[in-house]
């Protein structure tokens, strides 16, 4: 027995784009729409919004584009600490230089601080948090992570410092202790 069907009203422009999508996928509009709506209900059952789902996909692409990789945090912290214990100066230089590289990369963007913020969102994936505030003559930045080790906190702070140095800032204040980073940056040359 054929299944009962109903009709849903959709914006014409949106519907036309779905028709094009169906053609690209070499599927019927009926099949394409069904699949899309089924996935929406699946997201609903998982308790998440579709917007959030698609945003996360963007996040992964962005991370890849920035040369970031996912790493198990315990491994990362232990490796960073190992490097810091055995070769602190060299390890510090690496993180500062990489920060400067990213800073140079962000400086070309239309809104460099926005690009920094996007990177911070990626770097604090997991159980850490950041806050970045542009206060006109100063930028204040905080990062906290209760699982950060001393070595990783130091490394991350140097990465941040490198980024902002390349963007033309200098640290007016710096407070770094295990799990917590607080900076206030001012533009170089500002009095």
């Amino acid at each position, binding site marked *: 027995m054929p299944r009962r069907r109903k009709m849903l009203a959709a914006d014409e422009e949106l519907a036309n784009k779905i*028709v094009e999508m169906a053609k690209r996928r070499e599927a019927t509009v009926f099949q394409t729409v069904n699949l899309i709506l089924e996935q929406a209900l699946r997201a609903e059952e998982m308790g998440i919004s579709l917007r959030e789902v698609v945003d996360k996909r*963007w996040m992964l692409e962005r991370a890849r584009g920035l040369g970031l990789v996912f790493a*198990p*945090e315990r491994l990362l912290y232990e490796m960073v600490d190992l490097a810091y214990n055995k070769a602190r100066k*060299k390890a510090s230089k690496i993180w500062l230089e990489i920060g400067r590289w990213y800073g140079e990369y962000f400086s070309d963007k239309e809104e460099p601080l926005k690009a920094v913020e996007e990177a911070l969102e990626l770097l604090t994936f997991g159980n850490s948090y950041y806050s970045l505030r542009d206060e006109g003559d100063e930028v204040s930045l905080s990062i906290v992570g209760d699982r950060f080790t001393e070595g990783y906190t130091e490394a991350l702070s140097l990465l941040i410092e490198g980024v902002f140095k390349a963007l033309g800032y200098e640290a007016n204040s710096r407070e770094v202790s295990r799990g917590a980073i607080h900076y206030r940056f001012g533009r170089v040359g500002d009095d």
Partner: protein
Amino acid sequence: MIKGVKDTKLLVVPAELADRLKEVAVRHRVSLAAYVASILREALRAEEMGVTLGEALNLYRMMEIQRGAGVLQAPRTALQSLLSKAYREAGEELRNLWFEAGRWYGRYLKTRLGDENLIGFLEEVLRHHWNLDEVSLRGDDLELLVSLVSFTLSREGTELLSCYISGILHSLGFREEDRSILEGLARIRFKRMPGWSLKAQ
């Protein structure tokens, strides 16, 4: 699809699907048309990124599972530099560290995913989260061949990632038989450990 009133078109869907969507729309206190429009917009957004909504959902779920495993993002270049410096002085220690981390992660996956296809999930994690260019985990319940290709991973990185995978599969009941490692290229063969069965674990 049928033309509706001005600027609208009518999409034909199974009645049951329409009813379920209506329930959700009511819960969210939006009209069915508005709810459907928001869904279609997100589907188009996903399409622009080159994925279907289903793929995006699977990835979202994977990221949440990874977050629970304590995974974070780090600059690849920093990691590679650290690895090559630390590996020279503490290679054995690092290999053990990565193997043990893999073992923990394997146990975490078993706990979190239960009866799901763990090998399939692991393959996707390696592909998406470790940015490998090619990944394959082929075999059956008795034997597994893992192949990895990365055009950016160093020799040390390849070695350590192999140790990590070895640890994961050890937790899933596979013992490493042999491995062949080059810079950015790894082939590792595993055999099911005696006494292990999927049901028992």
